[in-house]
């Protein structure tokens, strides 16, 4: 009678089961990690119609260094849930620009239908504050039929 395993039969002391007693600890660790790293929005979104663009890119900057300026269809400017008169925009941008060490990105969230003079006025205010990085917030446009040259 041939020996099972060629005579190397030895009782293994290690269990062949994955230890499940620490599963809860792992799960809770993950849970706590996600809870801690989640940043809640402190600012409410304004209702705007987003312009669409094919070349839309992700902003490659920390959340703290992104400032949102909302421009509504009627030309109202909202920053941090507050209606801001156009001439005061630069006073709000300037301290953030210095605070961020000249890295501040301004996400300009203007309604698709707003007349351009309001967008231009906001840009002038941003320049007055010294900030130079502006991102025109857009939605990614998916074009099915795109002619290429």
């Amino acid at each position, binding site marked *: 009678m041939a020996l099972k395993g060629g005579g190397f039969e030895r009782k293994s002391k290690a269990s062949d089961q994955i230890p499940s007693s620490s599963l809860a600890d792992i*799960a809770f660790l993950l849970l706590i990690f996600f809870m801690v790293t989640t940043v809640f929005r402190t600012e409410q979104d304004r209702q705007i119609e987003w312009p669409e663009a*094919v070349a839309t890119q992700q*902003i490659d900057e920390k959340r703290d260094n992104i400032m949102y300026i909302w421009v509504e269809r009627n030309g109202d400017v909202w920053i941090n849930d507050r209606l801001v008169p156009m001439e005061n925009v630069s006073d709000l941008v300037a301290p953030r620009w210095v605070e961020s060490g000249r890295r501040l990105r301004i996400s300009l969230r203007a309604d698709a*239908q707003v007349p*351009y003079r309001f967008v*231009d006025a906001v840009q002038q205010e941003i320049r007055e504050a010294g900030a*130079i990085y*502006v991102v025109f917030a*857009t939605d990614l446009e998916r074009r099915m039929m795109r002619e290429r040259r």
Partner: protein
Amino acid sequence: MAILNKKQKVSDEIPSASMADIAFLLLIFFLVTTVFPKDRGLPIVLPEDQQEIEIPQKNILHILINPDGTVGVRRGDSQDEAIYSPRDIEGVWRLEVAQNPNLIAGVRTHPEAAHRYMIQVLDALQTAGSDRISLQMQDG
């Protein structure tokens, strides 16, 4: 004594076998409900103050955005203006920049033109790989 000695059948410990299930349930809940902010758009760098430099007219492609969304394209100092739709600008830019690599796009938008027409033109220019864009407003 007979009554007091009765063995209690109910365990006095909280069952920990389902603890992992509860934790994973919470974990999945948080994963699903987390909304990632959409921080995206078309980036542009505004000129700093005292950084305005004169550019020879031949290196400028004037792109004039009208209130109705049509786009007039005028090359440098020439006076003739061709009318395009915003989507054609990508091709126009590719053709023009092939002839003159130093070309700068001077996008001048009418004050009453909708923001999205400017975005369409900016989108076309960025899709065509242009990074020398100047945004201005027409006097009006």
